[in-house]
């Protein structure tokens, strides 16, 4: 966010007001989206108030529902970072799905290749393998951009298809467990190398990885010299080059961390949920992550609540189908409304609508343009 550079200089009161505004605008957008969604379900003959009541019950209303939400948000946190971090450097990466798939494949391969090692070693190596492979995959996309001028959005999108093709080739060919007749999969992980649930929760370790990654990358991007340099690339590449920053390296390293996060999501999916790599890995977490990143305005800390929001919508989607006989697509409609409303609300960021009266003669601040660089 360009505002953060200026904020460091600003007085605490101004800074607070900027933070409040940065949070209030998306919150208002969410409220508007819910109102629009209420109209939508009303058209389908459901009572909007009861729909919202059930959505709350399905997402946060009971201990089971809340854990359901936490569980669903875990992979989204990780895949959202895959888009959010490179965006701080002005890159639009949408390759989270491919990085997740290959991260999962890497984890399954690691477990397959080191059967004799201690369970803890295997677990660590699976997560590390996922991180490495996911990181290299998205790093490749950034390197193509930095060194060859290839558009990173297109390349990362196409890399998704390649990743899925690699997965299908390997699980239907060289890595196929001969016993997996009608659902080609890699050989199943032994029970003792499966990563279980967090203590006291019915939520797997992916949530811990997600939270840690969000916090650590927030510190990295917003509180270190590396992050400052990276954001400078996002603000103005020429200025960054003139200041002697190694722009290409910053891009590739950030993309590596971003892809690593999605790769870890894939490794967790294999090691905590699926127990082997197969086509079920291609579940759209990578694409949902893009949505999360944009709604969170590419702020790693904001990714956490936004993931919870989308996880909660996912968790309550079943009740909408069961109780109101709404189509499955109702949840997608809500996500779509959210996405568009929040992107639209971005144009109000920095305009100080409520917090300070605009001087009558002052020119309009170019808030829209300023945001586009980082968003």
């Amino acid at each position: 966010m360009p505002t953060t550079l200026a904020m460091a200089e600003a007085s605490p009161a101004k800074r607070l007001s900027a933070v409040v505004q940065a949070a209030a605008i998306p919150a208002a957008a969410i409220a508007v989206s819910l109102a629009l969604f209420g109209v939508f379900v009303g058209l389908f003959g459901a009572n909007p108030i009861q729909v919202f009541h059930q959505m709350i019950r399905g997402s946060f209303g009971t201990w089971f529902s809340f854990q359901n939400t936490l569980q669903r948000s875990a992979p989204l946190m990780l895949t959202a970072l895959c888009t959010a971090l490179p965006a701080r450097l002005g890159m639009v990466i949408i390759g989270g799905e491919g990085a997740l798939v290959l991260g999962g494949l890497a984890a399954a391969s690691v477990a397959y290749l080191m059967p004799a090692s201690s369970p803890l070693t295997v677990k660590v190596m699976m997560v590390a393998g996922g991180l490495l492979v996911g990181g290299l995959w998205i790093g490749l996309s950034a390197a193509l951009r930095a060194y060859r001028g290839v558009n990173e959005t297109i390349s990362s999108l196409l890399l998704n298809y390649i990743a899925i093709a690699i997965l299908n080739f390997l699980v239907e060919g060289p890595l196929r467990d001969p016993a997996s007749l009608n659902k080609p999969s890699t050989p199943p992980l032994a029970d003792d190398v499966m990563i279980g649930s967090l203590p006291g929760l019915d939520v797997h370790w992916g949530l811990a990885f997600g939270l840690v990654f969000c916090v650590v990358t927030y510190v990295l991007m917003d509180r270190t010299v590396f992050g400052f340099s990276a954001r400078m690339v996002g603000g103005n590449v020429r200025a960054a080059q003139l200041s002697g920053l190694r722009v290409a390296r910053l891009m590739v390293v950030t993309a590596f961390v971003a892809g690593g996060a999605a790769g870890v999501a894939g490794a967790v999916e294999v090691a905590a949920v699926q127990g082997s790599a197969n086509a079920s890995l291609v579940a759209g977490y990578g694409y949902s992550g893009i949505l999360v990143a944009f709604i969170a305005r590419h702020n790693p800390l904001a990714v956490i609540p936004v993931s919870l929001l989308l996880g909660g919508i996912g968790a309550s989607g079943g009740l909408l189908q069961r109780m109101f006989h709404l189509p499955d697509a109702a949840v997608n409609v809500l996500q779509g409304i959210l996405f568009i409303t929040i992107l639209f609300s971005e144009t109000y960021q920095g305009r100080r609508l409520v917090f300070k009266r605009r001087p009558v003669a002052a020119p309009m601040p170019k808030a829209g343009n300023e945001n586009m660089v980082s968003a």
Partner: protein
Amino acid sequence: MTSKNRSVFRKVLYFVLAGIGLSPATSLAADAPITVGFVYVGPKDDYGYNQAHAQGAKAVAALPGVKILEEESVPETVAVQKTMESMVKLDGAKLIFPTSFGYFDPHVLKVAGKFKDVSFLHCGGLYTEGKHPTNVGSYFGYIDEAEYISGIVAGLTTKSNKLGFIAAKPIPQVLRNINSFTLGARSVNPKATTNVVFTGDWSMPVKEAEAANSLIDRGVDVLTAHVDSPKVIVELAERRGIFTTGYHANQSTLAPKGYLTGAEWNWAKVYTDYVGWVRAGKTFPHLLRGGLKEGFVKMSPYGKAVSEATKKKADEAKAQFMKGTMVVYKGPIKDNDGKVVIPAGVEQKQTDIALESMSYLVEGVVGKTH
């Protein structure tokens, strides 16, 4: 909100107030009220795999005292585990039908381990005695019998002797359908060949349309498919003026002119049977399979393009299946590289375990398994 929904709501509220996981004592009787959950991997109006299951669910919903819960487009991830748990914990389901093959391992097994008093009946026939929980069952149908009959109709209807088959993945279940279809066609028309295209996944509408176009361009005049929803393929074939045979559900409304017949699931029979057993507190069969004879699968009614002579041939074969005298995999059978896969004198009956790991395409199929 209708009054029905309101009572549902009250019931749900009761469960919440009563505390999660605390289920009321159940009395077992054939007409005891029961809540049954159905989980689909795709849209339940897909003209295919999921619609076939949703039709079964509808039959269950019509039973007195039964309430059904349905969720569609649930992926084979933690999502399906949570959907099943939610049906049990929030809505008090006692019996759940997770209908996608890929739900079984690990998702159904994991959730079944948590709720011992709930029955989980999975579509796919994957149950292993002693290894899997006893509150789990798995069923599947020998739908390749219906494919054999579709093959006969296709083989007698084709003018170009080129049949087309668009399939998802070269896995045993799919290969068996392709082979049975081809054997059926060649049993009445030895000149017929089946051109196969694998799309790589269960739901790839764009690739399916491309495959259909390219097959039709190559002279194929009867097209069939084994993908989750053959809708795109059947519609496209109709527009281009060729014939189709359906799969999973009845697609005749999509192609009133060219739809010949089709291999359909009859889950209504299987599901109402299972619900009856569970309600009566009987032990249900953990592994249940059947074909035309057992009513697990059925044929779509013949379309108007099917000649009387063709109907007669097809009905003869069907009668043999109904009597249990038909053996589709009777040697000698060669694969399409000329290698003998079932020697002369060997019969692999429908229940033969060897057919479960089929890895070849029979002579007359144009295509490769990898």
